[in-house]
């Protein structure tokens, strides 16, 4: 499988007072297309920073990040936004649904930003609503949904643009066991359908389900396991 993500010598340094904090330090990493990687590590180790960099929400202070064989670090804000829109889907621990919008409106949001016309938006939203069995919740606002349903809506939103990569940050961290299991099933099914899945977690049990595991400690990859 060709590589979809190639990181070489990625640094992410923060200036805190007169101290430089190396959140990521000389990271080299290749992720294959259709891969399934768990990013593990203690809190503050830099795993979320890595996920944000991969999702182009953050810029590295040094190094190269090639996505689909294109250098991303030199892209403009507008170009990066378009990559986030078209190729990357985020799933967050706290769902991050817009509270005043209904489930359907939340799902349509990325398509709204992409300028897709209302008819197609509606159809695509219908499809993902059906895929994640939340059709009957389409008109509900997030506060009328259970945690599991919220995360389904969030996943529906992340996948409605048919991205190549799903970045999940503790996707089950805020769910009970049963719902967490369901959500994992959904996400892993996406991976089986060919989407590259990168998931941050500190749950070793979840991490063990991935095809690859990396462990980040103090901004460096301490361990890289393949199954």
């Amino acid at each position, binding site marked *: 499988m060709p590589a979809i993500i190639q990181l070489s010598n990625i640094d992410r340094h923060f200036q805190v007072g007169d101290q430089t904090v190396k959140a990521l330090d000389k990271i080299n990493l290749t992720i294959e297309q259709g891969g399934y990687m768990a990013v593990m590590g203690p809190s503050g180790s830099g795993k979320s*920073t890595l996920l944000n960099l991969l999702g182009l929400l953050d810029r590295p202070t040094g190094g190269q990040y090639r996505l689909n064989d294109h250098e991303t670090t030199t892209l403009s*804000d*507008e170009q990066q936004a378009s990559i986030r829109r078209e190729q990357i889907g985020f799933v967050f621990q706290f769902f*991050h649904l817009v509270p005043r919008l209904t489930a359907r409106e939340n799902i349509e949001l990325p398509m*709204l930003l992409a300028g897709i016309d209302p008819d197609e938006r509606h159809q695509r939203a219908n499809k993902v609503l059906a895929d994640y069995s939340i059709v009957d919740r389409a008109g509900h606002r997030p506060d009328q949904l259970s945690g599991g349903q919220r995360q389904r809506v969030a996943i529906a939103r992340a996948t409605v643009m048919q991205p190549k990569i799903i970045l999940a940050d503790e996707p089950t961290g805020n769910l009970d066991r049963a719902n967490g299991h369901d959500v994992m099933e959904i996400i892993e099914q996406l991976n089986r359908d060919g989407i590259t899945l990168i998931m941050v977690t500190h749950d070793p049990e979840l991490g063990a389900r991935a095809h690859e595991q990396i462990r980040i400690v103090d901004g460096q990859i301490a361990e890289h396991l393949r199954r």
Partner: protein
Amino acid sequence: MTLSDTLNYTITTFRSHRLRLSLMLLATAVGVASVVILTSLGEGAKNYVINEFSSMGSNLVIVFPGKSETTGALPPVVGEAPNDLTIEDALALQRIPGVTYIAPINIGSAPINWQRRERETVILGGNHVLDIIQDIQLDEGEFLPDIDPRETRPVVVIGAKIREELFGSQPALGEWIRIEEYRFRVIGIMQEAGTAMGVNRDEVVIIPIASAQQLFNTPSLFRILIHTQSREQIELVRDDVLALITKRHDGEEDVTVITQDAVLSAFDRILNALTMTIAGIASVSLLVAGVLIMNVMLVSVSQRRAEIGLLKAIGASSQQILWLFLTEAALLSLVGGLIGIALGVGCAELLAHLYPALPIAAPTWVIAAALSICLVSGVLFGVLPAKRAARLDPVTALARR
């Protein structure tokens, strides 16, 4: 993101913060309404004055005794009192080229009687062309006859209200009324005309100028009204009039000659300045509304950090976020402005209804100006919050709960 999507999205943000929304709309609306109301009042005052002056008649040059200028530090001890303006002066003016009509007038007040009814009335001494110059229309009878202005004649033209009050439903034409010890025959009745120059025409009686001088026992005139052939000749006639009177008064420039145009344009300038000042003061409230919008939007940006972070994560560029918030500011000020205009126009109409004498009306330019100032200030004050939102770092925005 299409415009309609942007608008729809913005409307959803309004949906969830009704109180905040209504406060902002209220502030904007009050600002715009005050601009509209105050400028309407200013315009009303201006139109009132201009109407008053235009009802004096057009192409008019007015001569009155005395010089409106200050000379010397002490009051003159001897012989500086202005000469009277006389009928002879008026007759001499007749020969100036460009002059079509001349009406010497005198004004005073005296009780008038018919049978047992009596009332105090403004008495105007004039001549046979006064009706042309002052645009006086008759209901019945005829205006003053064309006689030598030095000749008295016992005839009177009465205002509509005088007729009503003195005669009631009985015929007035041909009746004899008494003004002090003189008797006058009613030869004409004026149409209802309303007020001009502070004089209610409906409550005036007009008698020949010589009779008025006799009545008030004075050789002098109150004014000489000169009607010119055309507008262009006004200035020329003005200069000639001044020169001629000065010559007749032994080289002393002791009259003031004004033209209606000059008066009108002076008033126009003054009242425009006044209106603009009022509008400027009122605009301060718009400014306040703008600052309020900025404030509330800054709060809104910090409350919606997570949402902004999310929008960025799912593919919004900084530019799109900027537009989203600017749209919000623009929409707010537009809606607030429209409400304000409705409010302002409504209040102006109400005032016009309460004070019918004052032609209060919100002019279109005021409405347009108020709305555009409101929009511009709304968007300008929206720039700062919008930029802050656009610059927001999505990582920290999303990290917070």
